[in-house]
């Protein structure tokens, strides 16, 4: 029971990260109907930029709490800005000119873009993983089981995990408000429903699409920072696996649905952690991929999505 509880906490943490990336996939899919294959690599860029800025600022786990909070706030802003610039540029250069081209063109372009981003970072920053000293340490003991009760085991939640879960919650709330309450969110939802009609009613579709990419990149950059702080390592290739899993999360939650993406992220995180804990660590990625395949075959509309109607 205690062991399960611990895995639940770990799964929640990992799932939050996946959920944040998944939102980017789901929004872009909702609005232009394509998989932004390079989104996982935008997440990687966010993580890499966070690493670089943290290093440049010179904060370590030993710096004062105030210093760390200040540095992290700065890193969040910079990472989001840079990742947004990347995603915006990608959309302008690689996707926008291809609207109205044949079916596979944007996807192939996206795959090319993903390769470009990975290789660009690999060449500029060397291929080796970048390790980092833990920045946020400490945590709380939630539960303790003694040897007499059947094995020594302590359920812990680290400060880092609290931070990830709480900040994801906050970010999600802000984001949901943004989509539901503001004019920007209204335009975004309108484009999602019917691009042509939205543009007839005076919505600047190009701009809305750009903003969608920027919002997705912000969330991905935040996830990248969390990933870096949680695992204390980053490299140019993390976007690949995280990207596929986040995409799985988006599909599982119902592509196009933002709460669905978050929910899907949590489920995928849970499955991955539970699988590693109870079955085998080696096959945890296989488990996640199997979920993807199963969902697509048996439940293509996902948990919260609407069934796709094929229009001629």
């Amino acid at each position, binding site marked *: 029971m205690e062991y399960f509880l611990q895995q639940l906490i770990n799964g929640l943490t990992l799932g939050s990260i996946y959920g944040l990336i998944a939102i980017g996939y789901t929004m872009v899919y909702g609005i232009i109907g394509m998989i932004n294959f390079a989104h996982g690599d935008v997440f990687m860029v966010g993580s890499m930029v966070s690493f*670089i800025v943290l290093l440049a600022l010179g904060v370590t786990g030993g710096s004062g709490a105030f210093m760390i909070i200040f540095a992290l706030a700065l890193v969040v802003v910079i990472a989001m800005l840079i990742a947004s610039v990347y995603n915006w540029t990608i959309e302008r250069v*690689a996707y926008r000119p291809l609207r109205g081209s044949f*079916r596979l063109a944007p996807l192939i372009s996206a*795959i090319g873009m993903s390769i470009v981003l990975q290789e660009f970072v690999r*060449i*500029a920053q060397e291929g080796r993983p970048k390790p980092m000293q833990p920045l946020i340490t400490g945590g709380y003991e939630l539960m303790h089981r003694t040897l007499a009760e059947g094995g020594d085991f302590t359920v812990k939640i680290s400060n880092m995990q609290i931070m990830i879960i709480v900040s994801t919650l906050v970010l999600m709330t802000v984001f949901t408000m943004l989509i539901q309450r503001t004019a920007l969110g209204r335009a975004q939802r309108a484009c999602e429903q019917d691009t042509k009609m939205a543009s007839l009613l005076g919505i600047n579709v190009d701009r809305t699409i750009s903003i969608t990419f920027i919002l997705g990149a912000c969330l991905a950059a935040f996830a990248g920072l969390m990933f870096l702080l949680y695992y204390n390592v980053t490299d140019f290739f993390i976007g690949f696996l995280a990207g*596929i899993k986040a995409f*799985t999360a988006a599909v599982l939650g119902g592509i196009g649905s933002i709460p669905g993406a978050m929910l899907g992220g949590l489920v995928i995180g849970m499955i991955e952690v539970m699988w590693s804990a109870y079955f085998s660590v080696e096959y945890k990625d296989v488990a996640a991929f199997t979920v993807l*395949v199963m969902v697509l075959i048996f439940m293509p509309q996902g948990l919260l999505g609407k069934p796709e109607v094929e229009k001629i």
Partner: protein
Amino acid sequence: MSVAPKNNSSSDDSKALTTSALTKDLISTAIITLLVLIPIVAMKTVIGQGIISIVYRFGMAFALTGIVVGTRLFLHLFVWHKAPSAGSKSTLTSGLKSVSFSETITKYIAPGLLIFALLFPVFTFFHPIWDKRVMDLAVYILIYIMLGWGLNVVVGLAGLLDLGYVAFYAVGAYAYALLSTVYFPQWFGTGILPWAFYITLPVAGLLAATWGVVLGFPVLRLRGDYLAIVTLAFGEMIRLVLVNWFSFTNGPQGISVPKITFFGLPFKDAPGSFSDFFGIQFNRIHFYIFLYYVILTLALITYFVTKRLRRLPIGRAWEALREDEIACRSLGINTTTTKLTAFAIGAMFGGFAGSFFAARQGFVSPESFVYIESALILAIVVLGGLGSQIGIVFSAIAIMGSFELFREMDFMKVVLPSGTEPIQFRMLAVGLAMVLMMRFRPRGFVTKREPTVFLKEKKSVSGDLVAEGHG
């Protein structure tokens, strides 16, 4: 038919460009480029003895920004805002011109290439510089041409984006590796080993095709983008199983396998070998020349089988499916079977190539079957022009050959920062080429799409004028 109006947007742009607008555009370009470059390029993290430090390279970032802005200025002044008369030269005529050009190509270049390919090893005798390295490169390129032709059935003809093609390549390679090292000696004794490749080849093809059906069956109802991700997931799954199923595949260490023999005669300096049997001087190049002809044969089989299949109802169904799935279904074509055959046939060629790869290398390990290989094969198909078989030959030669060239380009080191080799940029170039290709020539350089069945009159439509569902 929406053919003409497509290029109108570019002529709309050709209004006079004011200086202030130009300045604004260039400044925003500069800012964005700097934002892209500063953290990643200008602040390089270097892992030293236990400590990580940052090397600042702002000079390089500014230089690159300068290049980007300069290029954009050049494009503004001389390319994007040309006088309308020059700019509005109809794409239709140029499209038609390219059709006749490509007709010439398929008529003369294909047989020419074939003759050249057949005679290629002969040149090595006259030219002492062309040694086994050249032959090896030729074999290497031919493997990718074959893989490209195999994937072309799936992507180019049936329009199914398969990102896990390397999985079938892996199935073929491991089929050969496991059969020849473990099972054949068990079943038939070691005497069979010299023949292992020839026996395994069809088996490997069948196995790969079976895997193609097994993997394809559940997912082929999905639409294009989903299919791409699922095939990618399958490719990774097979690789992960190869890495982790230690007792069966020997994990990441891989398996050493017997190399290919000349129909039972091994290539080595010993009695009973190829050179001994024919009474000639032993030379390593015999091995490479033989490899060359084997892969050439396999590739040509792929080529001609695909070419013939295109004329059969199934091939026509593939192409119809690529153009419009809904129309296909309403005409009574069973889309699942059609997709499945494309998948299986593509996979089978992948399996053949994999088997050959293992027999050439003498070693297989999961490392050869990573996602980037799939992406590379896809890039070959895309750059060749989806669906064009001759195009794939050129793009495979261009990509693989340029990889070799990157290795040789020492003069580039003057321009590049210290510590980087030109060879590092190869995949970056491939990725960029894919993006640019989709942007400017989405249907390829030399390709055209010509219906194999037509009513009364044969109308060619240049590929780049056609969006999905038209033409």
